[in-house]
């Protein structure tokens, strides 16, 4: 589904990302972990054609993302709060995104209503603009908006941060469900090793922009990851 070849990104000569080859098959739930500055957000930004690669390219469904825009209809994402339009209410935002993705109001309503328990009654019918919601609630709205329009690829940067424990668990179920039941390719990055191991079939560890581990998740994975990061803490 998503193929990365010889991808690198440099800022003023500083290499921040360098991935020789990475293949993410369709329907995989893919986790990206790494310390701050490891290149997680850079990779996602390249995947969404928000920044230009220094060398190499990413193809999604055989479409090279920095040459054609045809990947946009089947790709959706939530990177950070700047993906929200602050002066809209949550409903208006969902309808707007829906409209961009060719969904009518009824479609959007049907999808959003599935997430009623995820929203915990704090997002819909609030008569509040998104900019006035708390960080956690903004995140919930952004994540659900990324699910509108049956995307085949969903990219979520740090989806667990700022969420309360109940919502974290609900989100994990949603992500698992997307990959297993609906065949959606889900890309998630996180600092929380436990959450990613729970959710993802495959975990890639980035360090200083390079892939240092590529693990198919098993019972041992969490332990393996913990000992890896513990080792780098001792150095």
């Amino acid at each position, binding site marked *: 589904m998503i193929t990365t070849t010889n991808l690198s990104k440099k800022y003023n000569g500083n290499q921040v990302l360098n991935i020789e080859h990475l293949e993410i098959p369709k329907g995989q739930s893919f986790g990206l972990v790494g310390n701050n500055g490891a290149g997680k957000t850079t990779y996602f930004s390249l995947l969404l054609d928000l920044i230009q690669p220094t060398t190499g390219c990413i193809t999604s469904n055989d479409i090279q993302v920095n040459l054609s825009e045809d990947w946009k209809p089947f790709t959706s994402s939530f990177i950070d709060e700047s*993906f*929200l339009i602050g002066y809209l209410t949550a409903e208006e935002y969902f309808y707007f995104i829906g409209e961009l993705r060719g969904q009518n109001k009824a479609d959007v309503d049907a999808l959003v209503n599935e997430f009623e328990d995820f929203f915990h009654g704090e997002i819909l019918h609030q008569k509040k603009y998104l900019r006035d919601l708390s960080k956690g609630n903004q995140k919930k709205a952004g994540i659900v908006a990324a699910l509108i329009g049956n995307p085949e690829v969903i990219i979520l940067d740090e989806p667990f941060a700022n969420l309360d424990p109940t919502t974290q668990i609900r989100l994990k179920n949603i992500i698992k469900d997307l990959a297993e039941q609906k065949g959606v390719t889900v890309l998630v990055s996180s600092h929380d090793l436990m959450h990613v191991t729970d959710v993802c079939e495959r975990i890639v560890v980035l360090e200083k922009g390079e892939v240092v581990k590529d693990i198919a998740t098993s019972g041992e994975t969490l332990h393996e990851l913990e000992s890896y990061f513990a080792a780098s803490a001792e150095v």
Partner: protein
Amino acid sequence: MIKHFLNLEWKQFTRSASFGKSLGLKILMGFFALYFILMFLALGVGMFPMLKKIFPERDPFVMFNSFIFYWILGDLVIRFFFQKLPVMSVKPLLTLPIKRGKIVNFVLGKSALSFFNFLPLFAIVPFGVTLIFNNYNVSVILIWMLTIFSITLINNYLNFIIESLSAKTELSFLPIIGVSGCLFALNHFEIINISELLAAGIQAVANNPLLLVVPILILIGLYLFNFKILRDKLFLDSSLKTKTQEVNASNLEWTKKFGDIAPFMQLDLKLLWRNKRPKSSVWMLFLGLFYGLVFYPNPTYQDKPFFFIIIGIFITGIFLINFGQFIPAWDSGYYKMLMSQNIKYKQYLKSKYTLMTLSVIILFVLSIPYVYFGWKILLAHFGAAIYNIGVNTYVILYGGSFNRKKINLNEKAAFNFQGTGAVQWIIGLPLIVFPIIIFSIFNYFFSFEIGVLALIILGLIGIVFHEKLMKFITKKYLASKYKMIAAFDQEN
């Protein structure tokens, strides 16, 4: 402690991302300041002989005092619009072991050092010195100067109280304009002669130093009141936290008539209506409409037809200019999202184009009553409107592709230069100057009608080639996509 505060201030100033960029603006401000200083100096030096000449039978000192009322009113109004309470990012300080009172005192104390408070001194001191040279009692004049200076400071603190009371609502300037207008009217129609009363008061203080206590007590009272207001605000949950607004939802179903650009038009309309900064460009429409009244009643402009064109371009295009110059920076807050969504740039731009065109048409219709001042004006406005639609909209959209400055939608609009760069000034030129040149040439060699016709033809050409031009502009935007995303990501 104050040393730390000053240190923070300095770093905030020199390390802000826009320090280098807005240096030009600062230099410009510096020139303005210098200009005002010189004006006031001239006023101070020239005041005595001037008053002597105009009112030879009256005492210049008494005369000057009777003007102070107007000065106070004017000063208050100007301060209200230009002077802001010096801000300090207090949020990180709240959890540190610093007494709240100290922070408030620092902020208030710093405001006393404002340029507005020193400016009057440039007039008062020379005037006082000339008075002393003209054999006025030295101690009386010195006390008088002190009184005036304390009145300046009273104005300073009074302004902050007015500002915080009239709050951050829309049209917050109405109360101050209303009250000062009323005071002026009361005085002008001599219902209560405030200016004489005030003059008598100042005179009394000057003659009796003990009475100096009165203005100083007022000053202290105002300071304490300010202190109380600010101190109460120094909690995370009051003023530092942004107020939540009640949603004013309206369904904009009528935009559906515009087809595939409807979602963007709805978004743009909400953008205009729900954010402080763009909302003010809507208010500007009404001010702009009356712009013609300044010039048209004046017969000197009647035989200068190029004035009709300037005003026509301005009246029918004020929204176009105000809104258009910040495309696409209006959407800078969520530009990344738009770029990763399944949108066609063309629709996005066309929505802006449609909005601007609609505004030109509506404003032209509203400006029809100007026909009262002559049919030529109506014709000129019509020509300007067509030119605005057919040429200026594209120019401003094209200029937008060079836009690299983020805009914070929720900041006050008056005299906010955020997002303004060289591009805005350069684009502004062809918008107004170019049509005037074209018109003037045709008007000079042929006639007024041919001049207007030339503008109309240019506009029509633009309308005919709409698709081609939009395609070209869209390409420009696509080419600068990454640069815009990177630039809008930075706070300035």
